[in-house]
């Protein structure tokens, strides 16, 4: 049974689903990054060779990360059955918030002040979109 209602605010449950989706996504990306060990592959083919080189044990982190990433598809579909894509996708950018914070705590990377400003802009964007009054929500 499909029931579409107009709402003034994003339901908390759906918002929490999206936050969970972002957390899983961030975990997957950190695992993949730990497995690969570098950001900048030299070429796509050498990158693919690198991924299948199982004598490098760290590469299992990459495959674990990819598995987590793929399984996140089900949660994403659940979210898409609830709200507009144009609401869900920008909200799912919260990875841009979690990744710098996670990099500070787990990878001990430095975060520049301009990046914190970017994070504030992203957070206010999330606030605006969650209050969009034209969103359709299916219950």
């Amino acid at each position, binding site marked *: 049974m499909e029931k579409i209602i107009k709402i003034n605010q994003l339901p908390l449950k759906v918002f929490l689903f999206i936050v969970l989706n972002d957390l899983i996504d961030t975990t997957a990306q950190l695992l993949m990054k730990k497995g690969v060990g570098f950001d*900048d592959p030299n070429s796509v083919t050498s990158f693919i060779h690198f991924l299948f080189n199982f004598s490098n044990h760290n590469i299992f982190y990459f495959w674990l990360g990819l598995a987590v990433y793929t399984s996140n598809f089900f949660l994403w*579909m659940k979210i898409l059955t609830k709200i507009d894509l*144009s609401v869900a*996708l*920008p909200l799912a950018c919260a990875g841009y918030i979690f990744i710098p914070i996670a990099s500070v705590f787990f990878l001990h990377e430095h975060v520049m002040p301009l990046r914190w400003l970017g994070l504030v*802009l*992203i957070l206010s964007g999330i606030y*605006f979109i969650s209050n969009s009054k*034209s*969103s359709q929500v299916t219950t």
Partner: protein
Amino acid sequence: MNKALILVLIAEFWLTTGQICFKKSANRLNAELTGHKPWVIQLLERVFRFPTLWIGAAAMMAGLLTWFAALASGQLSYVYLLGSIQYIFVLIASYFFLNEKIDNAKLIGTLLITLGIILTAIS
């Protein structure tokens, strides 16, 4: 640099197509959902019946591969900066292909997020 720009645009085209197809599948699933079975089972039962799921998955894979190629060709932060255009692509595509409405809050929010990602990418 221009090679990276073209690759990012192709990648974002495929990723947007994938998202639109997934959302179309979700809408169709919504119309057929019943309360009797777990939601995941109902999704899995339809995997073979919904072509949009397969087209979406193929488009996502094409997008990810092109994205890797973009990362390999250009400077990393430049590619991430360009990648923020996805939010604008999806906003426009969901208006035309999914009949989703755009209001000021959605427009301002999407632009703020895009700008925020550009700032985090250049720093």
